[in-house]
């Protein structure tokens, strides 16, 4: 199955005892398992020098931007204070309790594109491209580009060719992290129009330990292709847990009370142009769906 093939990242589950790097002949796949840091930090692209930037140099002193920032944050703060009087999350409590559908992302204007980050394997030196723009009539978002699965020549990366669109973490006033609370819903509802390629939906939830930072809950999004819109409903019980592109043994259902981001990834090893048009992304409560989790609980030492 085509999960993200980023195997240049250390596969920590294997071979922690390997500390020597055998200099094999160049035609053979080299097996370099780098030393694992105690705390998994940011991904460092292989070959990039570690830039030591002093912390005070990272602050940008710009007066007009500062004023804008102050205005924005204080408006958000005021909204937070006044929203509490209306009800939880700014909605009246009756509406909050009886809510069955919520359109979380609707692409109805250029500012909606600012909530999304698009990236491709260009960051690790690959040749894919991905762009995001508004679709026809400014009513949809249109993700398009080209995939190229030639791996970058850095000696470490073996597979490549992916592109992804990920929503930005919602922020409260003063850039505090806010989470989506989807605990009263159980299905993800999308309206998409693809070109027949299989995509993957990634949901990232808030975690506690730093090792869980790259924990993503994934499921497949198969597009039919064609000029008609496709309604896709995926219950949250179907999402399986992966870490850095590898499906994990210890599976559990996604906790919906603190969802950070949602993303779409394409990595189907077919070189060429792709496109995906999304009308809206919403969550809904399907009373007919009673499954809690689609995969079995983990057995520590399964017999062969």
């Amino acid at each position: 199955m085509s999960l993200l093939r980023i195997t240049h990242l250390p596969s920590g589950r294997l071979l922690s005892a390997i500390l020597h790097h055998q200099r094999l002949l160049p035609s053979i796949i080299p097996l370099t398992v780098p030393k694992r840091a105690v705390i998994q930090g940011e991904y460092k692209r292989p070959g990039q020098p570690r830039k030591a930037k002093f912390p005070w140099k990272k602050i940008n002193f710009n007066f007009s931007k500062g004023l804008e920032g102050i205005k924005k944050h204080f408006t958000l703060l005021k909204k937070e204070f006044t929203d509490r009087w209306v009800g939880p999350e700014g909605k009246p409590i009756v509406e909050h309790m009886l809510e069955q559908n919520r359109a979380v992302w609707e692409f109805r204007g250029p500012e909606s594109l600012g909530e999304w980050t698009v990236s491709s394997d260009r960051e690790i030196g690959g040749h894919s491209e991905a762009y995001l723009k508004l679709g026809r009539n400014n009513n949809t978002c249109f993700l398009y580009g080209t995939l190229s699965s030639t791996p970058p020549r850095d000696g470490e990366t073996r597979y490549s060719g992916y592109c992804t669109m990920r929503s930005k973490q919602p922020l409260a006033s003063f850039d505090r992290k806010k989470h989506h609370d989807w605990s009263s819903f159980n299905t993800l509802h999308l309206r998409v129009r693809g070109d027949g390629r299989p995509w993957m939906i990634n949901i990232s939830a808030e975690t506690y330990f730093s090792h869980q930072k790259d924990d993503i809950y994934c499921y497949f999004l198969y597009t039919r292709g064609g000029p008609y819109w496709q309604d896709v409903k995926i219950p949250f019980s179907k999402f399986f847990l992966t870490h850095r592109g590898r499906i994990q043994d210890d599976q559990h259902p996604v906790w919906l009370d603190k969802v950070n981001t949602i993303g779409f990834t394409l990595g189907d090893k077919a070189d060429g142009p792709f496109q995906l048009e999304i009308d809206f992304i919403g969550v809904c409560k399907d009373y007919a769906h009673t499954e809690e989790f689609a995969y079995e609980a983990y057995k520590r030492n399964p017999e062969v």
Partner: protein
Amino acid sequence: MKGSRCLHQLKSLRLLSHAGRLLPPAAGDNGALFRPRSSSQLGGLQCAQREVLRHFHSSPACTKGQPARFVQEEDKTRDKSLVTHDDLFEQVAKEAKTKATFNKVIDVYTKGDIRRRGHVEFIYAALKKMPEFGVEKDLTVYNKLLDVFPKEVFVPRNFIQRMFNHYPRQQECGVQVLEQMENYGIMPNIETKVLLVQIFGEKTHPMRKYQRIMYWFPKFKHVNPFPIPEQLPEDPVDLARFSLTRMANDWDAKVTVYQLPCTDVTESGAEVTLPHIVGIQSPGQMEALAKHNPDRPVFVEGPFPLWMRKTCVYYYVLRADPTPPEEKIEEPYDPERCLSYPLQLDLDLDRDLGDDESFDVEDLDEGPVFAMCMTSQGDQATLNQWISGLQESNPILGQIPTLFRLGAGPRELQGVGDADSASRSWFPSHVQREEAHPGEEAEAVVEEAEAVVEEAEAVVEEEPRRSQGVKQ
């Protein structure tokens, strides 16, 4: 199952083999250490039968059954120069690159040295060469490759060995073989399991990887709601038919082949290739087109890509802009259309308080799609042919102005890598238009040319910089 019986026999025999291995390799012993003891008992397994009894001290050249062309390799090894395992494959690659030659290389290697020196490097080289030989989707080849590992040497014998990642390089190599199988979506079979148990033992990394594959692959095998067969039809007309029915999503839709691909030789001797034109239209679309207002134009848009596994085909769409709300007439259902059940019910089905299953999102009305077609050559002439073919079943097309909004051709799409790629798009809002060729062909369709052009430009709100191809 025969395989599981093999496993049981293996477990019981391993206890015997432990006693056997303590004997030192005697001169007369035919290297039987590296032959699985259970080979005689597991007659059904492929792997066991190909082991060759070799004398410990005899030279490899004396072995019977080796083809003459590999003698040059023996000279090379006697030269004692460094020869990579890739060279073995490359030598064979000068002839045909088939499964048979690949298997032959593996056989040469396995028979070359009883100790299988450098088997890890050999297996990595073989994994890399598999796509070139075209055997990457063949399970028997993977099993044969796993068979290259010497058996029972890497099996941990006590808890300390089990704890400390016994023979890590070989385990990683085994995992990489399984990972390549997983990449190509090949499900391993019981023979793989038996091989892994023989080579690595249970509760080792390759075995765990095998268990993971066997758990997750069946779960995700049928998860595609629009499955595509492994082998797509080769014939372009059949492929077009399959993909159009896939997109149309309507059992009643009818596929019509307007033109079959053929190569004609004209009088001047020039070869003219006629592309295939396959179209699809459902009865609902025919009705909608019949009710379409002739004042409003219809558009032929394309080409849009459709991917099926690794093949990309392009299709064109005949559609119209959505009718403005004031022109929408809601026709009541004709009760005589369906006599078995009423098409319209006036029941007051009040749902529960707060029970609302629809999203609060404005409905995107992009206009009706009237027909779709696929052709290998997407120029205006071919699409004109399609429209004239459609006209036979939809006579109203004769009065409706048809505008062509064609994007960049499929060939240009492959070369997306320049700076302009950001400005290219499949949808007509940013598309590069073809120039209008007025009067290039005399069509059978009769239309009022100028009046139509004026109407079209007034009616269709488009930016004036775009040129429109008007069917004359």
